[in-house]
């Protein structure tokens, strides 16, 4: 994957985007994956909840929220997924590989907050 891809395209000068249409987070932003334990179907693994990372890219186009789709609700719930980079040492304090090693995961917008 190249570094220059999946950037949100700039809007035309007077075009107003719909709510949820533009990405809330930008490449390079520091984020935290929320530490929630909802009841039902979810796609954010436990080992990453509450961990800090950086937005590596915005995944275009917007996608369905898998957690809603799991119950057949798949209309109007499209938001962005983000490819988030998290250092292995952030996830595993005793990690023994290179300190540069990292994890990448796609996280739906509703599971992120600014760091």
């Amino acid at each position: 994957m190249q570094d220059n891809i999946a950037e949100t395209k700039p809007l035309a000068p007077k075009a107003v985007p719909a709510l949820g249409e533009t990405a809330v987070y930008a490449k390079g932003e520091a984020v935290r994956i929320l530490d929630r334990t909802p009841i039902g179907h979810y796609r954010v693994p436990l080992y990453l909840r509450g961990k800090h990372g950086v937005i590596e890219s915005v995944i275009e186009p917007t996608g369905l929220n898998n957690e809603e789709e799991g119950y057949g609700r798949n209309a109007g719930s499209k938001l962005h997924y983000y490819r988030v980079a998290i250092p292995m040492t952030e996830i595993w304090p005793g990690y023994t590989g290179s300190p540069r090693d990292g994890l990448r995961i796609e996280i739906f917008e509703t599971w992120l907050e600014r760091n």
Partner: protein
Amino acid sequence: MAHEENGHDHDHDHSHAEIGQTERPGYYDNLETVVRELLVSKGYFGPDEIRRQIEVLDSRTPALGAMVVARAWADDAFRKRLLDDGRAACEELGITFYDQTGLIVLENTDKVHNLIVCTLCSCYPRPVLGLPPDWYKLKPYRARAVSEPRKVLAEFGTIIPDDVEIRVSDSTAMVRFLVLPKRPEGTEDFDEVQLAAIVTRDTMIGVVEASKDIRRGE
């Protein structure tokens, strides 16, 4: 081995153990059967659709992914398009994405080694690689690939130097990943068919590196 009880007494190396279901179906076996029969009886789909989808899955094998990798190695413009939009580039080669997933292709370089896993279950780039190997779906690989990837790689015989960054991509939602392995040295004269022949499934998961001396079995 003599097998007189099976009506002959010559030595040979196959087992006469019956292949059969000897245990009662488990909870999830029953659940799958009941849900499938319910969906069929309600008319959501029928036996023909089930058969067709099995045929779709059976038609997808690592040979497709190998064709993609070989093209990327041989054609730099294609390689760029593949890294830019994995799904669109695969579609150029006639590979359809029947499951509505996206595809991000991760390029291995001298500085980065990519490995893919699905810690939640078994997300896998099925449109280009077919069904995942059993070990990919089992908990030891799923847990260890994200916590001690270098040890997992070493068990596959892959030693990654410490100055090479390991990037583990955990696929859990809409996007699937495919590793574009490094083109091995000594393949400068290979054509695309020869290149595709050395691209194994495991190189595209990232657990091993491509080698000019390995051939993918078909």
